[in-house]
């Protein structure tokens, strides 16, 4: 399995390096604006997949509460690491209570 992991790592790296090898003249202002928007769209999609899905279906569970508390803390400008830590604690705590 270690060789499968190495080959997969090289495959993933190929995307990373490819982005740096695109010739400058292809990177128009419109394309740059697109790459900037992609950052936002992907992060939002990752929140969705990581927070609202389980084994092939969309679900609502304690992670929603963790995200809600996280959003409130971010709105109150709490430090990032504290927000993530409290998110974990909220989910762990609610599960301990049987949710």
């Amino acid at each position, binding site marked *: *399995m*270690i060789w*499968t*992991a190495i080959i*997969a*790592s*090289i*495959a*993933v*790296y*190929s*995307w*990373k*390096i*490819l*982005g*740096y*090898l*695109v010739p*400058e003249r292809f*990177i128009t202002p419109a394309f*740059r*604006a*697109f*790459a*900037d*928007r*992609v*950052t*936002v*769209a*992907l*992060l*939002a*999609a*990752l*929140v*969705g*997949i*990581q*927070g609202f*899905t389980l084994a092939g*279906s969309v679900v609502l569970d*304690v*992670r929603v509460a*963790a*995200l809600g508390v*996280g959003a409130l803390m*971010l709105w109150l400008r709490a430090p*990032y*690491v504290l*927000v*993530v*830590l409290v*998110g*974990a604690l*909220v*989910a*762990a705590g609610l*599960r301990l209570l049987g949710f």
Partner: protein
Amino acid sequence: MRRQVLSTSISVGIATGLYGISFGAIGVVAGLDVPTVMVLSLLMFSGASQFAFVGVVAAGGAPLAAITSAWLMGIRNSFYAIRLTSVFGPLGMIKLLSAQLTIDESNAVSAAQQTKEAQKLGFWATGIAVFIFWNLATLLGALAGNLMGSVEQWGLDAAAAVAFLGLLWPRLRQQLALALAGFGVALVSYPFLPAGIPILLAAAVALIPWRSKA
């Protein structure tokens, strides 16, 4: 400014470590040995791709399926790299290194900064901080994996979701419509498509020239 960027970077590094523990534990529970789990964190170094790889292995999938899922999950790093190219200008051989550090977190912290200087610093500081904490945490998780029980029990799955929300947060006020579209497309398509594809589909909403609020 410099101080603030560095403190954000380290903060993101530590927070990423939290779910790095979860990755290490999940990897071992999925049946990978500790060196293989570490190869993924050191060489692949892209959280979503690593989780995809381990997910396929845990489900008893073929090696080729594991490689393909990880690969598909990594496409977005290419977009990040393109964004970063215009921040950096010519990099020479250093691009081999910056490519390895091009991930959600380093790009997000960079994109949240106002000046070019801060954007560069944000990328390098976050990339290096995440690399260090992610790998230490993976090792810890892999060694403790079988003792930990489930990562859900520790809320580590929620930590990852909250971490992505935190990275998105600085951009939400200006680009709320775009974010909601990406979120919606990913979730609506998720039940019907193979792992990795819903995320790609969400990237496609960025093709629409959404106006951002100043």
